[in-house]
């Protein structure tokens, strides 16, 4: 980690055990919290956003104490925060660093771009198959239309 980054990051205190989600686009921080169901989280949760970042300009960071996510759980955030990096902390030590990966399947995260899709007209859990991870193209399980990066919206 670069010196400047480290200094900025320490604006949010370190955690003893848990997961740090770094390099979240600032605008996506609250979506990440929602997707990971952290609004009801009972342990220590540190959230910062609009921090200066050399790589990204502005970024957000979330530190979740005593929580180690399963990969299919954490990868859901790749749809809103493809740049996010995960740092696993044990006893204040970095154990592992990794990037999030776009999942094969997205349930109730994305909104179908097709206004005539039944999911935009009834209370229905949206389901998408990711058919192109690089270009981010998702096929709606219901209307079969493709929602792409340029028209993606979140629930």
């Amino acid at each position, binding site marked *: 980690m670069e010196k400047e980054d480290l200094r900025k990051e320490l604006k949010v205190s370190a955690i003893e055990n848990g997961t740090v989600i770094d390099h979240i686009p600032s605008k996506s921080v609250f979506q990440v919290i929602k997707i990971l169901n952290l609004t009801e989280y009972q342990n220590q949760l540190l959230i910062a956003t609009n921090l200066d970042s050399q790589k990204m300009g502005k970024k957000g960071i979330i530190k979740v104490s005593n929580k180690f996510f399963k990969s299919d759980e954490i990868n859901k955030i790749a749809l809103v925060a493809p740049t996010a990096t995960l740092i696993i902390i044990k006893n204040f030590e970095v154990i592992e660093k990794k990037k999030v990966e776009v999942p094969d399947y997205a349930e109730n995260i994305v909104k*179908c771009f*097709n206004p*005539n*899709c*039944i*999911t935009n*007209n*009834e*209370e*229905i859990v949206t389901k998408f198959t990711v058919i192109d991870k690089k270009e981010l193209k998702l096929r*709606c*399980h*219901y*209307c*079969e*239309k*493709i929602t792409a990066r340029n028209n993606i919206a979140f629930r």
Partner: protein
Amino acid sequence: MKNKSLVSINDFSREEHIRILELAGAFEKNPKQRILEDYVVATLFFEPSTRTRLSFESAATRLGAKVIGFTDSSSSSVQKGESLRDTILTVSNYCDIIVMRHPKEGSSRFASEVATVPVINAGDGANQHPTQTLLDMYSIRKTQGSLDNLNIAFVGDLKYGRTVHSLVHALCNYNTTFHFVSPLELKLPSAVKMDIKERNLVYHQSTDLLEVIEKVDILYMTRIQKERFSDPLDYEKVKNAYVLHNSMLDFAKPNLKILHPLPRVNEITTDVDNNPKAYYFTQALNGVYVRQALLASILGVVD
């Protein structure tokens, strides 16, 4: 296929498609069999579609089934604000199979997940209309003897026509050579062309109907709607270029048949109707046999 819903043409395998077409052939030979006397078929038409509904009701009635349902949502509880989920859950209690037409895309998939009985999609918005595809396949197979290795032309609105997209998709299984004839504004979407390329099949695109007629075994005509053009002048320029007249068929192959999903407006002139190559009304009749085959096999009365 017992208890299996049919929402999208891809829900059934190539083998299952062929099985339905063979069964439909048996119903054509003997259409009045009272094998569904103990069954209730619900036809839920959330938007009107007289032709499709009558075809399904005819198929069900000829097999002895009782038909219940509504013909547009103004005469159902939808008018009172009931959700699709609640309507489907309730109607599931009253019938053995649901046939459904709905203006929203994906409604039929959703209904098939909620319903406790199988669902046949009779059209969900611009998305799927699989029974039309099956009756088109039946008509092609019957008139040409096989679905394999044919030259098939699609004419008219290839951009928005869901019957075209779905049939092209299904025909990709049969080594078809495609000929697409349309104004530039209404060309086949690239996603559908990708399907053809992925199967290493050949397609030709043209704006000239006449040059294509003599090359093909099937001429699948569709209607060009004025509303599809942003500039009415563009419509005026092309509207007569995709009208089929009897005189244009002089050099056609002897086995050529003309198909159309109907309703026709003016894209096939009435002087074609008496030409033995005109097949569109028989095509509509075939729809009844295909729907008989679907009802009987999904209800498990035939294998």
